[in-house]
């Protein structure tokens, strides 16, 4: 099922959660909504589910306008961060709930039981039908929650920070497992996360959101290699930045050209973004960025160095392999291998 979000705006009392958001989700895709808290990602997910109503704009399931339909009519599978399992029901009853409450073509009880144990097999919890949610671990509960959502054969599967309440190891395990389930069942799946590793590893495409807007939509490679805004550059992966000046197609710090050509950038103030590990360490002082080491700490196999650059002592962070001789020096010269220039804000 394709899902199309068209110019959606959502206002709560005095707060605008989403401003003019449009997004096309392809059928069968696994897509991540990624952003810091308050970016509107959960609101967008709840709007797709029908748990909230857009202030403006519409949401389409295929060609059909779903905005006017109730949650029940939309037939979506929703998985909550804190599982929201019904605590007084057994695992099997939880999974069968969506089928039991149907008023049209409600399957007979035996069929519901059969479906529940089938789904338990799928989520690798075979034999736990009679347990109660309180008797399960966090990871198992989330698996049950997913089985419950899948039981109604949803048109779209929506997951709100599905692994947010779990510890790191279970999280990694469930991530791989979710990917497998997705590939097996082929549901169009949207999940919300603030964990970029989760989004980059799991999703076909990542939607980076900030302050109620979509900043960029693309594959994991797209958003890391060609971020289209300072926000995306600094939000995805490690990044360093330096205020610079662009003049005559060259990039300058104070009165020194740093050996980076910028032929397409208009003259004026700009900010240079690069990855702290993706640099070339140089000898000498021409055509490079040079500075004195202000602080340095070792993190596993690399040394994180804070460099003071230029007359106004702008600080910039670099990652240098501990084996490199530069990691012991007090003055370091370097040039980023890959970089991106954004016009200075304001």
């Amino acid at each position, binding site marked *: 099922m394709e899902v199309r979000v068209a110019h959606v705006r959502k206002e709560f009392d005095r707060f605008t959660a989403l401003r003019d958001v449009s997004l096309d989700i392809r059928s069968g895709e696994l897509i991540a909504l990624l952003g810091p808290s308050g970016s509107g990602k959960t609101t967008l997910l709840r709007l797709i589910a029908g748990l909230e109503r857009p202030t403006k704009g519409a949401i389409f399931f295929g060609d059909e306008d779903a905005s006017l339909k109730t*949650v*029940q009519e939309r037939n979506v599978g929703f998985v*909550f961060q*804190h599982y*929201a399992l*019904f605590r007084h029901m057994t695992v099997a009853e939880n999974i069968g*709930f969506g089928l039991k409450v149907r*008023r049209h073509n409600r399957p007979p009880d035996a069929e519901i039981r059969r479906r529940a144990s089938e789904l338990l097999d799928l989520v690798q919890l075979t034999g736990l039908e009679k347990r109660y949610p309180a008797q399960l671990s966090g990871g198992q509960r989330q698996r049950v929650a997913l089985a419950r959502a899948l039981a109604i054969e949803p048109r779209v599967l929506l997951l709100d920070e599905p692994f947010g309440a779990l510890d790191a190891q279970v999280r990694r395990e469930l991530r791989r497992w979710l990917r497998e389930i997705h590939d097996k069942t082929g549901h169009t799946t949207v999940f919300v996360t603030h964990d970029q590793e989760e989004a980059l590893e799991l999703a076909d495409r990542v939607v980076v959101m900030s302050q109620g807007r979509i900043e960029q939509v693309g594959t994991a490679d797209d958003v890391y290699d060609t971020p289209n805004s300072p926000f995306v550059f600094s939000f995805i992966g490690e990044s360093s930045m330096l205020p610079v000046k662009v003049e005559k197609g060259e990039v300058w710090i104070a009165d020194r050209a740093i050996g980076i050509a910028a032929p397409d950038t208009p003259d004026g103030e700009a900010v240079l973004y690069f990855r702290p590990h993706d640099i070339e360490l140089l000898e000498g002082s021409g055509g490079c960025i040079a500075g004195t080491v202000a602080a340095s700490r070792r993190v596993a196999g690399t040394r994180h160095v804070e460099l003071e650059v230029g007359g106004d002592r702008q600080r910039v962070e670099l990652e240098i392999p501990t084996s490199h001789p530069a990691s012991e020096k007090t003055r370091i010269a370097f040039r980023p291998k890959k970089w991106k220039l954004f016009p200075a804000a304001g």
Partner: protein
Amino acid sequence: MAEAKPATVRQPRFRSAVTETRPARYMLMAIAFLFLGIFLVLPLVVVFIEAFQKGTGAFVDALIDPDAMAAIRLTLLVAAISVPANLVFGITAAWAIAKFEFKGKAFLITLIDLPFSVSPVISGLVYVLLFGAGSLLGPWLKAHGVEILFAVPGIVLATVFVTFPFVARELIPLMQEQGTGDEEAAISLGASGWQTFWFVTLPNIKWGLLYGVLLCNARAMGEFGAVSVVSGHIRGLTNTMPLHVEILYNEYNAVGAFAVASLLAGLALVTLVLKTLLEIRYGAEIAATRGH
């Protein structure tokens, strides 16, 4: 051989920062027990002693007296109407307050607490002013043959008024704490509003609800002040058990008064036991606030 320490040197003993000395602790406990013993247990014992003063026969006679039976019936009837009424009202109010955001919510919560802060006599007087002969509604009601004051409807109204906070107050914090997650899960799975209520919300609140109903029932049966104002004290017709106790006592019929009173006291004891059992068994599922 171990060296003997001089007796005067005492080992420094660790004392927890928040613990009183032993005598102080025993003193506090003794005061608490003594106070409860004199003011609660002793009167309770006296009620039963007085009730059986002239033997079991007199006790039973006092209870099967037609007026006493009428009072017991009326009390049960009033409870049978007002408890379900407050059950429905309590769930509705708690649902509205816990699950929705709306203007005037704080005001609604204050209103629910009103019967706790108003003297029951005033609660009764409100109905007298509203439905009495001198009120706006009184003559109209009289012309249409509707009796509210000094009749069963008035007693029910007064009891409902006095007891309506119990269920609502029990459920509000419980439902607020549980949030709307389970309900959202249920509707996303296709459940209708009623199905969500029956299968998800109600099971989640059942023990808190039972607790609230228990307290509500105890108060409904025992209410004196408000009922006294609106009842009119007509023997065999508008006397509830507490009112009947008062009348018998004023007539120096100690055995009769205490026999009926012992029924009320028994009810209180049963309520107390059930309440304690519920708290032990389902404490976590019953709201943490105990404002009454």
